[in-house]
């Protein structure tokens, strides 16, 4: 005997695939899946067919052939005899260099401008508004071209710095020279060089760098231990021991000792013959790209910072003042933690944008990933498909890493709700 309360399920009919809610989404997904697969199959078949028509194959063997072209700025040793793969790695490092430098500078400038826009000072706030509107509403390419033109057209040639009565002079206490081909900046030099660690593939790390990095990491660990101990003492006795001088000591003293031991100092560039030597000559394409990316992104970051600070309600700072917190404690303990929650997600996308926009290096001839793998290598080997696919995947991986790393950070500062 059947249970009368459960209606007999109607026999399955084909039209139920479309009209019945239970099956409709399944049907729809299967149809979309088939269509997408058919589309992908069509593209792949076309590609295979086209490649065979041209007598090409899809392989990455060209990466291990001799590159045969020079790159002006090489963070790792590179000559024209190296492979295309090594050239691509050099390009990738160049991309990362300009991206990291740009992100740091844009954040600093953006925060300053964003806070200044909120200042009580009428004139300064207006000036910052003008800055933001001008840089936000014109194409980045325009700024890159303008900054590059400023460097190549207005800056003096290196030989203008020569002679007893030169027409140009170095700035920042005779440490930086802006010329129309490169910017000469000082380098770090050592009187007591400990030699380098060879990582293979002609990549070396100076022992001094490793030692100082090690000292800093050890300092961070020691600082954490000091803080934990202070917390433990406070939990036990209710009195927090004064630790700032211990923290300061573990963070700075070992590093200072190492710096003294290695004899680390700044070596200023000086004019020898036609060019500056002694320092580092940074090509103007890098400087122009970096400066333009910084200014452009800073305008966006300024807006993000301003919106973040405005998003914290006035009552929060008033409450903090009512509790008797001083303004800087209010800022660091009440306002900033809440503002960061609003600021960080859009800030992440600005970092991503800056990294991707660094591919505009093409406009100033800076040899980044697009300039090496997607430029000269592509043109020399004629492997458009492989080079562009590899380049896109590399950019994709960089983007995903940035976004994953910043999302972890975001999760830490996020407001904990229930």
């Amino acid at each position, binding site marked *: 005997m059947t249970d009368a309360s459960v209606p007999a399920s109607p026999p399955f009919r084909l039209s139920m695939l479309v009209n019945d809610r239970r099956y409709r989404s399944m049907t729809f997904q299967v149809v979309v899946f088939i269509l997408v697969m058919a589309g992908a199959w069509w593209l792949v078949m*076309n590609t295979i067919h086209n490649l065979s028509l041209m007598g090409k194959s899809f392989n990455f063997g060209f990466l291990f052939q001799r590159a045969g072209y020079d790159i002006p700025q090489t963070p790792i040793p590179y000559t024209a005899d190296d492979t295309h793969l090594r050239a691509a790695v050099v390009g990738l490092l160049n991309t990362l260099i300009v991206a990291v430098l740009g992100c740091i500078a844009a954040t600093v400038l953006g925060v300053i401008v964003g806070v*200044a826009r909120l200042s*009580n000072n009428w004139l300064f706030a207006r000036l910052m508004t003008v800055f933001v509107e001008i840089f936000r509403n014109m194409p980045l390419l325009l700024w890159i071209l303008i900054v590059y033109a400023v460097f190549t057209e207005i800056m003096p040639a290196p030989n203008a710095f020569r002679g007893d009565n030169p027409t140009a002079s170095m700035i920042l206490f005779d440490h930086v020279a802006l010329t129309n081909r490169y910017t000469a900046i000082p380098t770090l030099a050592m009187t007591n060089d400990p030699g380098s660690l060879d990582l293979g593939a002609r990549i070396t790390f100076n022992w001094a760098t490793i030692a100082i990095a090690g000292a800093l990491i050890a300092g961070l660990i020691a600082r954490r231990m000091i803080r934990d101990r202070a917390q433990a003492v406070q939990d036990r006795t209710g009195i927090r021991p004064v630790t700032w001088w211990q923290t300061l000591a573990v963070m700075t003293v070992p590093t200072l000792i190492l710096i003294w031991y290695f004899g680390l100092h700044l070596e200023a560039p000086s004019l020898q013959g036609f060019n500056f030597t002694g320092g580092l000559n940074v090509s103007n394409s890098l400087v122009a790209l970096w400066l333009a990316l910084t200014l452009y992104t800073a305008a966006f970051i300024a807006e993000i910072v301003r919106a973040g600070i405005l998003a914290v309600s006035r009552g929060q700072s008033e409450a903090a003042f009512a509790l008797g917190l001083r303004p800087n404690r209010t800022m660091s303990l009440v306002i900033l933690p809440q503002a960061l929650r609003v600021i960080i997600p859009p800030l992440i996308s600005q970092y991503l944008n800056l990294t991707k926009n660094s591919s505009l290096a093409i406009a100033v001839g800076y040899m980044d990933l697009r300039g090496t793998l997607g430029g000269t290598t592509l043109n020399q080997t004629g492997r458009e498909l492989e080079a562009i696919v590899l380049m896109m995947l590399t950019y994709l991986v960089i983007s995903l890493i940035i976004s994953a790393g910043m999302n972890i950070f975001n999760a830490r500062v996020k407001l904990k709700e229930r």
Partner: protein
Amino acid sequence: MSDTHAQTVGFVRDTMLPSAAPPVRESGAVRWLRENLFSGPVNTILTILGIGIVWFLVATFWDWFAHSVWNANSLNECREIVAATWGEGARGACFAVIRERWNQYLFGFYPQDLYWRPTMTFGLMMVALAPVLFSASLTIRRVVLAITAVVTLWAMIVLGAPAGWLGFATLVLVVGLVASERNIMWLLPFSIIYPLLGVWFLWGGSLWGPIFVLVGPVLGWIAWRVLSRVSPLLATVAAILVTVLFWLMLAGDAARDAENLLSLSIQSVRSDRFGGFLLSLTIGVAGIALSLPLGIVLALARQSDMFLIKSLSVIFIEFIRGVPLITLLFVASLLLNYFLPPGTTFDIILRVIIMVTIFAAAYMAEVIRGGLAALPKGQYEAADALGLDYWKAQRLIVLPQALKISIPGIVSTFIGMFKDTTLVTFVGLYDPLKSMSDAVRANVAWKGIYWEPFIFVGAIFFLICFGMSRYSMYLERRLQRDHR
């Protein structure tokens, strides 16, 4: 105590003193200065810094602007004029290059005698946009359309448009004005056919092509009407199939035959003649119009319960957002011939528009997803409670609110996309910024001129982008429905 005191004091003032002016430092300009510029040491330092920046900028650039030359035939002539007028060693801007080459910055290498065609296209675009963008306020509509009408007709006369086309433009503009006074929605059919008309005006050729492109959806609609009584799904499938099959199989031949029977051609212009702001605006407007619907679909797909749909949309969006636009443009220019059947070629501007649209749509999808996520859950539940199906709920309840929330993001995506149209220079198109300036500098007369083209092009970009951002603020205020 107090009452004894009250009785002893026998004096009550019976006249009011006239009110005195506040102390001089507490009102007017002095007070404003003290409050806004010199309220404390930090503020004073900032003021001095600000004055310093302004002074530096003015001192560096003022003489250069003040000595600008507008009438000359070459850079050397400019320099001679500056030296003759302001003395040896003076410097001055040479805006003569803009005066001589403005047409290339605006139209690229478009044939000179046809300049009126893009002008008319742009003017009529405002009429087509009116029902979409300016439907709320009669005053704004009146002002915009009247200015558009006057400027478009004046420019067409100056550029030497033939009388027939002048009449056509006048007709459309006047009808637009009348419709805007009576009922703006009368213009909606024009807005719908405008994209095809615009393509025809710009590229020229036979009108039969756009007509038969339009016939496809009409046939599809007829098929849908006939079959919708049998089954809605069957009708939808049939409508799409009829449209696509008509486009693929019949439209081309039919357009050729019709052209042979009755020629409706105007002079055609090849894509490589496009350049300058004409190119930027064509790519920008097409990208904006196409990326919004695509972005909405992607955002809805990403919010969907169906796992496969959601994953496909996530993969697509994250992939597009993870790579620079330049690489996508390279795909358009270098790789598309690998992916399509051998012998397929289509226009480079069309390819760029497709890539820009895909790129902008991925960003748009994320913006709209934010709007969808910001919508209270109760709204979705209310739609379900009313018994609306998915599409009705989205169309009537969810999307209007979500889109309203995402207006600022949508407009900044548009602004970003319009600025990014300058990147087409890297696939060999003549963008107004780099390629056009390089082309101008290639001429011996203007070799070495940098700043004036940058200023000119930058100013136009600034006006358009700034205008768009102000429009979005206006829209936000107008659509504000919450009571605060």
